[in-house]
């Protein structure tokens, strides 16, 4: 096996030092009755070439060919990834390093993540961003736990918009239930927005979580929710699944968010069948010590040179153990580094232009689909996703488009919102050209 360097001579001379006759004797400290009687029932090893063939065969069973067109989002978006990003992130000094516990030989990771934290605070208009979380759903669940624990009135309920990504609501439920907390869902209006009037009437809640752009792609009036959470004296949490939206939209910080949980997959990270993505978690200065996960700070070395270290570690599980607010240890660091590379590549000019193009294409797609006979479900401003009501029989056509043309056109909303029969969620990003849209419009006519 090419990963195992030991020659028979090596093994024999090492056993002489350890004082064992055979390698199996090294396991004499394990009582025999605990050892397995059966060898591992897994296939024999493949050569690199056999592995390539097997994996390509599996990969080809997924409909994700080079020419495929992705008119779907819902938490995972198709964006251009510049060639320098996979090139740079593959540098093994980034990829094969551990958590930067030894700062003297980890300044690359540390400065890179410090820059990431900085650019995320800039993107979101927040004071502090953590070094990353697993994904938006888990980051949002952690944010909800912060609000619940902090609430002085001992409210045990968190109000979550029904237009927060359905999976994220399920994760929140999983996370908060064992500690005795409860999630209440805020209904949505016929404009496709979170019903603020319904929220106003809710009593005994410890925090509010609103996604914007919401699951339907519509842009929420975050300012109004901020006023309401101030009136109720509770924390206001904002989430998002499309990070590029904040290249164009007013950021959650400027609209008063106390905590922001988001998905950063759009920032140069492959869709990769849903993971690993990038959980973003940010807060106001006041929340610094309540945020879970790693934080990197600037400091000086013994010679007075600038450098970076993991800091405020007393919040974390390895020190605070059972009193830690979260158990997170490994995060999605390499993807945070990828996002930093992406943000520095697109820069101030690029992020605005790409965000604007996403919106332009989505508007054009919507108009085109309407011309093909689809109905707009909501007339609310959106970013790059929107909901359409389709004619009867569309599902069959949609599957045929995937099968025959590698075009994914819309996600059926009925499984998530049973009242939305024949409603589909569409998305267009900068990777979709005008002719792609014209082509789709013709196909679905």
């Amino acid at each position: 096996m090419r990963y195992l360097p030991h020659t028979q001579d090596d093994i024999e001379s090492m056993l002489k030092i350890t004082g064992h006759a055979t390698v199996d004797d090294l396991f004499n400290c394990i009582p025999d009755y605990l050892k397995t009687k059966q060898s591992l029932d897994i296939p024999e090893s493949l050569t690199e070439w056999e592995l390539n063939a097997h994996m390509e065969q599996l990969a080809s069973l997924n409909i994700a060919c080079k020419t495929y067109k992705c008119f779907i989002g819902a938490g995972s978006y198709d964006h251009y990834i510049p060639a320098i990003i996979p090139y740079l992130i593959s540098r093994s000094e980034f990829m094969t390093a551990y958590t930067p516990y030894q700062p003297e030989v980890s300044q690359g990771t540390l400065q890179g993540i410090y820059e990431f934290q900085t650019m995320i605070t800039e993107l979101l208009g927040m004071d502090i961003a953590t070094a990353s979380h697993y994904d938006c759903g888990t980051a949002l669940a952690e944010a909800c736990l912060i609000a619940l624990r902090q609430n002085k009135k001992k409210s045990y309920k968190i109000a979550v918009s029904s237009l927060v990504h359905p999976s994220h609501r399920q994760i929140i439920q999983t996370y908060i239930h064992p500690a005795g907390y409860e999630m209440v869902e805020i209904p949505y209006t016929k404009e496709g927005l979170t019903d603020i009037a319904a929220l106003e009437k809710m009593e005994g809640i410890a925090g509010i979580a609103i996604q914007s752009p919401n699951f339907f792609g519509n842009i929420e009036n975050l300012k109004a929710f901020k006023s309401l959470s101030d009136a109720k004296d509770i924390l206001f949490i904002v989430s998002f699944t499309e990070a590029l939206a904040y290249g164009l939209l007013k950021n959650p910080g400027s609209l008063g968010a106390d905590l922001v949980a988001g998905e950063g997959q759009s920032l140069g990270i492959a869709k990769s069948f849903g993971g690993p993505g990038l959980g973003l978690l940010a807060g106001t200065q006041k929340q610094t010590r309540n945020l879970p996960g790693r934080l990197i700070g600037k400091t000086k070395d013994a010679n007075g040179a600038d450098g970076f270290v993991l800091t405020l570690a007393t919040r974390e599980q390895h020190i605070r153990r059972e009193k830690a607010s979260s158990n997170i240890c490994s995060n999605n660091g390499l993807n945070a580094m990828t996002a930093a590379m992406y943000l520095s590549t697109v820069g101030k000019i690029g992020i605005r232009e790409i965000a604007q193009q996403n919106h332009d294409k989505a508007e054009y797609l919507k108009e085109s689909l309407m011309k093909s006979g689809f109905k707009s479900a909501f007339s609310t401003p959106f970013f790059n996703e929107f909901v359409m009501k389709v004619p009867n029989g569309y599902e069959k056509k949609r599957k045929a488009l995937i099968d025959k043309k590698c075009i994914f056109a819309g996600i059926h909303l009925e499984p998530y919102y049973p009242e939305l029969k024949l409603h589909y969620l569409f998305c267009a990003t900068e990777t979709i050209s005008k002719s792609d849209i014209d082509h789709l419009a013709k196909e679905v006519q």
Partner: protein
Amino acid sequence: MIQQPGTSGLIFNEPLLWEKSRKGRCAMSLPKQDVDRSVLDTDLTGDAPNLPELSELDVVRHYTRLSQWNFGVDSGMYPLGSCTMKYNPKTNEVQAARQGFASAHPLSGDEFSQGALKLMYNLEQHLAKITGFHAVTLQPAAGAHGEFCGMLMIHAYHAKNGRQRSKIIIPDTAHGTNPASASLCGYESVNIKSGPNGILEPETIAAIMDEDTAGIMITNPNTLGLFEANIKEIADIVHSKGGLVYGDGANMNAIMGIVKPGEIGIDVLHLNLHKTFSTPHGGGGPGSGPVAVGKTLEPFLPIPKVVKELDTYKFITNRPDTIGRIHTFYGHFGIMVRAYAYILSMGAKGLADASKLAVLNANYIKESLRGTLNLPYDKPCMHECVFNDQFQKEYHITTMDMAKRLLDYGFHPPTVYFPLVVEGAFMVEPTETESKEDIDQFIHAVKSIAQEAKDNPEQLKKAPRLTKVTRMDEVLAARKPCLRG
């Protein structure tokens, strides 16, 4: 004279991104505008985020220089105890980058994602076989997430049985994530001490296990690198009071093909694909923390769950006793691809050999450094061995000093000051992918440092000297947090 890998070289300074920024630069090839601009209401739009403005070469040089300040497994030996820093095979990266995997949208639909589903199904089967369990979920995103998932299942199991319990037993050799994971489920940790041999004694468990205790969390091999030989007896005691046994499989690299945790009384176990199954640590993640369970806990696995019907694969969500969902989609699929490629490359024999050689390497280091460093628990070890700085105390040299000096010799230091049960712990896990020559070099470096501790302790106090920066002021960082530029 053995030549050590550490030396000096030209290291570049590199400012922060925004210090390099010049107005008007952009490193992105911007797509052409081929549809009309659609302007949103100015009430909704904000200023463009103030990101750095750079050319493509600016970005490339920035990250290339940063990378050169890092130490990775590809740079040199990384004997970090309990972290299993083995070689990360490059073919795994090629596999994960295949268009059909990397570009697959998670909501494509089962019928258009058969390759991904089949890979997940196969990987679950292989992991079940390796661990001796009935079923596996791949959804947890990291080891700690897997622990949380496992504890949620134990919590759900007791709820289903009609009476929730309030406590969980956690030995002093546990990872810090264990008590934190248990707390998230509302369990109070009952901390117990291991015996004088460094392993748990059944009497200790028998004395406190009661019907208000949900179970026990055990790391086996434990964080002292010792096999918990009484595991079966302990499991029987816990089971007799209606509790369950959680196994932390972070140290699975010691026992593949030797012990199957599912056969020795453990009810639920998490694995770290980024430890045992060779996926890169990425400077802190992303990892993947699959959880394996026996029949008792199988109904509580998270959704969605991949199933095989005839020759097709699909996700099912309709499982009444499930703990629910813990990841937005299906977990870290890209990491699963790498681990799957590793298992197929190694095969049954390769995996068993990996464990054997990992244990051989650790015992070889232990015996070779006997007398140089103190062995607080002098017993045959598994894949890692724990020393401490007892012998160096008279020279006022600490574990930290020796760790920092190792950097100058070109080695990443071992895990230090963990496990907490050993004062000044120096915990070495070489892994099976290090050759005898590299290990000999490491042993030589440690011996030289121990000699320097006697002859020239000042040199150790000032270490490291060859790195980009020297010891950092962590007090300043914590007192006056500066978390953004």
